[in-house]
């Protein structure tokens, strides 16, 4: 790009900017993929799975990039809340050439199918997957009823 005639100094700055543009021009070009669209990790709410056995409810959540101390888990009877902050690190907006990952705070509230004992919840975080092990409240556990002959 020709920038003759600019005032002294501005010309050099303009050339420097041009050089930068050249370096990063066409740095990235998407190669068509057979994969589906970008998944819902993009969304601010983490995706969850939930299952149970007789005595325990299990929940796992996708929280890539977060440490345990950056997550808050609240439980009350039959309600579970998972909150966290995926705000971007100090990074100028202009430095992003592509920005698809979530960079927001989130708070997901889930109604549990049975009440749990909040005091006994265990949390484990492994490679971006938070797993919660939640013992069911005594009243929610199945009880064996002795059948007597009449």
């Amino acid at each position: 790009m020709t920038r003759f005639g600019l005032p002294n100094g501005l010309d050099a700055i303009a050339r420097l900017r041009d050089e930068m543009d050249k370096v990063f021009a066409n740095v990235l070009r998407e190669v068509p993929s057979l994969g589906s669209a970008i998944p819902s990790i993009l969304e601010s709410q983490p995706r969850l799975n939930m299952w149970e056995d007789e005595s325990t409810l299990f929940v796992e959540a996708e929280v890539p990039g977060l440490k345990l101390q950056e997550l808050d888990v609240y439980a009350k009877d039959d309600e579970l809340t998972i909150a966290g902050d995926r705000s971007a690190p100090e990074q100028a907006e202009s430095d992003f050439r592509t920005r698809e990952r979530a960079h927001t705070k989130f708070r997901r509230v889930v109604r549990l199918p049975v009440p749990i004992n909040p005091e006994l919840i265990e949390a484990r975080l492994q490679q971006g997957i938070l797993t919660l092990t939640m013992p069911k409240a005594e009243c929610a556990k199945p009880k064996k009823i002795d059948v007597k002959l009449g």
Partner: protein
Amino acid sequence: MSSTGSPKTSPSIEVTAPIDVIASEQELVIRADLPGSSVELIDVRFDEGTLSLRATIPPRQLESTAYLLREFAPTVYTRSLEIGEQFDLDQVSADYESGVLTLRLPVVQAKKPRRVPITGG
């Protein structure tokens, strides 16, 4: 957990990995969310200027697990990007931590933009 033992293999869906690309004068940083994968299950390669990423997210529970809620499943994340010649592909570093893959591609030394000193009178 309720579903102990080795999870059975189940068909994985293939999806595009969400990425951030951050550029500076020194390097290009690519970050990809790949929760639930592991170093052994991530493959990154460059071939004729194309960066290809493939990461498997294996099943964690038995196939017979009766989910009350299921929003994600075994997955294969893929992504391909054409990378310019200005990056030193021999010096690329890759790190997988907390479910996020970070690739750092340094700019080839000779092609880094240079600041032009300005003198004034």
